[in-house]
């Protein structure tokens, strides 16, 4: 496992959402308060220059982690440190750290202000951080950024609706780069795009990472994309990290039963006629997650202990895995 100095270190991160009905309804209908533990004690570190990916099915808390990391939500518990310094409550210190990270979202339609010209969209971080002064200099910089994402400098005078989904995602990337970040959090940046356009954006992301030494936290539900892009991968299930490892290791030797199940769903594009384990069940509601290991109702290896006691992450030959069966050497 990598021992490079960590750019970002996340420790026991938590975010709970209160999704109860209004107080009066609860009292009248005698319903309890309902809490979703969207992220429930997640820890991992990201080394400078690497791509750390989080995978998992809908609702497992990937986007919530992303939003917590860039400070869009305050955490309910836990710590986030950047270059060894904890990002605390102090507003100026926060702002300073946060200016070194940027986020790219899934939906290139919703994330760009339709009434702004591309120049204004991309120049926004330049203005807020006062990186460059002077109209001409800013225009030159925006033109340069557009070329870096393979759009034409002349595109800066257009509006978002004049662009396709892939082109809009390039504009989002240019805007993120405008703030000269070191760390980019990308939440499903290609999930809304056609595969050929996805390939263009993924190639661009790799190129920019090499050119500017960027560090990525990459969120996706697409395992093949994650395999292609990542240095290390973490697998989430119901708000928890159940396994993480170096990419090649995770895909060659998945340990956690959920990771195995996920890998088994990858379509067989080589038509090897590989036999599958039938996959059972669905992700349960995060409001009342199962006791013990929350994967136990779907797990073929579950025992009494799994139903009672939540497993913790442990290092097992190159992986970190939260599973009793793995710890007990049963699988």
């Amino acid at each position, binding site marked *: 496992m990598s021992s490079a100095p960590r750019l970002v270190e996340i420790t026991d991160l938590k975010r709970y959402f209160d999704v109860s009905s209004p107080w009066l309804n609860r009292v009248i209908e005698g319903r309890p308060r309902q809490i979703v533990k969207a992220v429930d004690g997640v820890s991992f570190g990201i080394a400078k220059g690497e791509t750390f990916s989080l995978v998992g099915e809908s609702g497992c808390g990937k986007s919530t982690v992303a939003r917590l990391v860039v400070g869009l939500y305050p955490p309910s518990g836990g710590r986030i440190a950047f270059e060894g310094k904890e990002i605390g409550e102090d507003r100026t210190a926060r702002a300073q750290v946060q200016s070194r990270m940027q986020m790219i979202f899934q939906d290139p339609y919703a994330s760009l202000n339709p009434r702004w010209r591309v120049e204004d969209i991309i120049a926004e971080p330049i203005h807020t951080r006062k990186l460059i002064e002077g109209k001409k200099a800013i225009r030159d910089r925006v033109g340069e950024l557009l070329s870096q994402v393979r759009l034409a400098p002349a595109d800066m005078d257009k509006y978002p609706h004049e662009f396709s989904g892939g082109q809009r995602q390039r504009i989002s990337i240019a805007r993120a780069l405008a703030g000269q970040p070191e760390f980019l959090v990308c939440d499903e940046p290609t999930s809304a795009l056609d595969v050929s356009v996805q390939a263009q954006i993924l190639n661009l992301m790799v190129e920019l990472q090499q050119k500017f030494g960027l560090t990525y936290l990459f969120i996706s539900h697409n395992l093949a994309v994650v395999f292609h892009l990542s240095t290390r991968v973490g697998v989430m299930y119901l708000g928890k990290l159940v396994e993480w490892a170096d990419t090649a290791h995770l895909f060659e030797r998945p340990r956690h039963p959920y990771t195995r199940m996920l890998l088994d769903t990858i379509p067989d*594009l080589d038509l090897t006629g590989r036999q599958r384990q039938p996959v059972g069940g669905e992700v349960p509601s995060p409001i009342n997650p199962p006791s013990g290991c929350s994967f136990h109702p779907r797990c073929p290896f579950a025992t009494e202990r799994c139903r009672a006691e939540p497993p913790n992450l442990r290092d097992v030959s190159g992986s970190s895995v939260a599973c009793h069966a793995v710890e007990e050497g049963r699988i």
Partner: protein
Amino acid sequence: MADPLLKVEDLKVEFPTRRGTLVAVDGVSLHIDPGEVLGVVGESGAGKSMTGNAIIGLLEPPGRVAGGRILFEGRRIDDLPYEEMRKIRGRHIGAIFQDPLTSLNPLYTVGRQLIETIRTHDEAVGETDARTRALGLLREVGIPAAEARIDHYPHQFSGGMRQRVVIALALCANPRLIIADEPTTALDVSIQAQIIALIKRLCREHGTAVMLVTHDMGVIAETADRVAVMYSGRIAEIGPVREVIKHPRHPYTVGLMGSIPKVGQRREKLTQIEGTMPRLNAIPRGCAFNPRCPKVFARCREERPDPRPTPGGAVACWLNAAAGRPA
């Protein structure tokens, strides 16, 4: 050889707009044999859903079939009056859409909807028998505790379970053909795998043919017998799945396959097809793919290539012209 179940000949779908008529499907020909799964794959705007909707007679106006013929069991169905087409739809041709909620009425229990559907298709079936059949269908599509779930409303089901209910609805009349448009796109990967397995099993057990419309080559690889690759309203390439995936002939298919990241094959760069698919009002002369094609030559810019036969299929590309006569 037996007649195909469905035959589409030179289908053209148009959309009149204020600024002129857009051609969304242009000269599509394909057939589906009984019990066969034909995948139709392509990027957004390629005309896949439009082709499926034309077949089931559900083109949204002002879209209309402007040319060609659609034959179901040898009988022409593209020019039927609305009422007659409605009877064929449901009874002989079922439909499954991406969003299961479009096929379900939120105000009725799933049991009610299944029973109604069963009884519309077969008036001789009584309420009790229909309920028994409905239960059987729910069990067949893998709804756990079907006896209890039959009286639940659609919103009480998860996305994956709802899609199972929609499949049960489509099966009510035992149709010979199901048009499934992105049936797994809205679902999580593990649920997607379950629904794919279900569709495959139903085809095998009922001999139902399926036209599976999707943007996801992975779903095609897992499910289809043959695949049609669409680009700009035309079929670029059609053939047995194995042929098309392992030995793509059309440069678009070659690019598409190379652009898909694959687990186990670490590549520095994914193959990149430059540019994007043209808008319907700007489809280039000649081959629609020519401005993006790495193999383009003079003829491609002038003349539109017609599909020409390949082993088990056809390819619309001038590179393939030497290989055969027009199909």
